[in-house]
């Protein structure tokens, strides 16, 4: 049985060494979106639901690479990470997970759910006035996902959720290294607004499916579940 929704996987531009695309039988699904829109929760729920339906799932997410995790955290703690270095460090995190988590899982026929993809790396870099077209070409070694769901929320919603949940505005999530305002709150708002703008433009170019994330988590989940069920013919 073939599924018209699911084209064979391909690279954006530059094939990774040592990867035979015909071996990749799994599905690659990306959950994108800015900070505090509830991506992690949604990935957890989707995983449980997919597994209940008999699909083997591997989930991964930005900054979780075993190669770069410690070093990246340390560099962020020092607050001396420059914007160019940051973009490439995140790309190294991405590539490590792509080659050592995502590709092996796809080879084994898993559904791979990834909490952000390289799009977030590009967005963060562009919000720091870097050459994002260049960084997108660096990401040319990425696989084109079967689907990317962009959890899109208004800046008011992002601010409110961050204040309710994390209850503080983190240095880098506030773009304080740029910065976008004269205090933490202003900079958080300004930086997150810019991220949403950039993700919107990436959404058009890369063809994301936009999910309204201003709604309660249950509604978002129901929406995602319905779309993924159609995609995977569950």
């Amino acid at each position, binding site marked *: 049985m073939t599924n018209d929704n699911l084209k064979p996987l391909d690279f954006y*531009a530059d094939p990774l060494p040592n990867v035979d695309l015909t071996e990749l039988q799994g599905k690659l699904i990306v959950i994108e979106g800015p900070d505090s829109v509830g991506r992690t929760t949604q990935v957890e729920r989707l995983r449980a639901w997919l597994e209940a339906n008999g699909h083997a799932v591997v989930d991964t997410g930005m900054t979780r690479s075993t190669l*770069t995790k410690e070093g990246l955290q340390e560099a962020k703690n020092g607050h*001396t990470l420059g914007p160019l*270095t940051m973009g490439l460090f995140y*790309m190294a995190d991405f590539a490590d997970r792509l080659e050592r988590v995502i590709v092996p899982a796809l080879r084994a026929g898993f559904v791979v759910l990834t909490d952000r993809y390289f799009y977030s790396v590009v967005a963060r870099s562009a919000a720091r006035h870097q050459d994002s077209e260049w960084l997108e070409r660096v990401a*040319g070694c990425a696989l084109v996902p079967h689907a990317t769901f962009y959890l899109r929320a208004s800046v008011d919603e992002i601010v409110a959720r961050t204040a309710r949940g994390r209850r503080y505005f983190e240095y880098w999530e506030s773009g304080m290294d740029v910065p976008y305002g004269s205090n933490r709150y202003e900079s958080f708002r300004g930086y997150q607004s810019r991220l949403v703008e950039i993700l919107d433009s990436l959404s058009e170019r890369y063809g994301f499916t936009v999910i309204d994330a201003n709604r309660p988590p249950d509604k978002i989940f129901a929406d995602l579940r319905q779309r993924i069920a159609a995609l995977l013919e569950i």
Partner: protein
Amino acid sequence: MDGFRPNSYSGKLIIVEGIDGSGKSTQLSLLSQWLRSKRLVVSFSEWNSSSIVRGTTRQGKRKQMFTPTTFSLIHATDFADRLERHILPMLEAGAVVCADRYAFTAFARDVARGVRPQWVRNLYRMAIKPDLAFYFRVPLNVALDRILGGRAALKYYEAGMDLNLSSDIQESFALFQERILREYDSMAEEMGFHVIDATGTIKEQQRQVRKIVMNTIGDALEKDILRQPTSERRA
């Protein structure tokens, strides 16, 4: 085309390239001593030396976690950190920046590891085009004698053991260096390298290097480069 950004600053960027054992570091060190003796402000940047990236590189090597792609990206991250923290500001301040290895090391080594040439060339489009690039060319057997004779044991990635060229580490190293040498040679003209015959005596090579420096950027060194005040000169 290298695709680098042109150097629009008053400082000058001089870089050296060559395989392990070519003697490039010795030559760069002698050159910088000479420039310093003229009271020019000279700043050094060494490949793979960013303090921010060091822990990650060490871990990747120790646990053999690198793929050709992540090896390339981590070294580019290291380069980016040195570029934005050190190389760019010093060039803007008017110093001579001497770099021991530059993007060409990645072009040679990462391609020898199997990454796509156009991908790694794009990766280093962030770099500044050097004002002078020296390539210390040495036949493989000469470099191997120098390296294998007088140094500590070869390391895994340095010897290209990740490529499975040979299970013998010395043989793997030789095969890997041969590939790198081929890459350097094939880009030498395109990249505008000043090729120095690195089989000559250290003194003779240095004489040539200094002559090329004077002929190409001598005027700028005279006029544009930041200098140490004369009063600081020691008796």
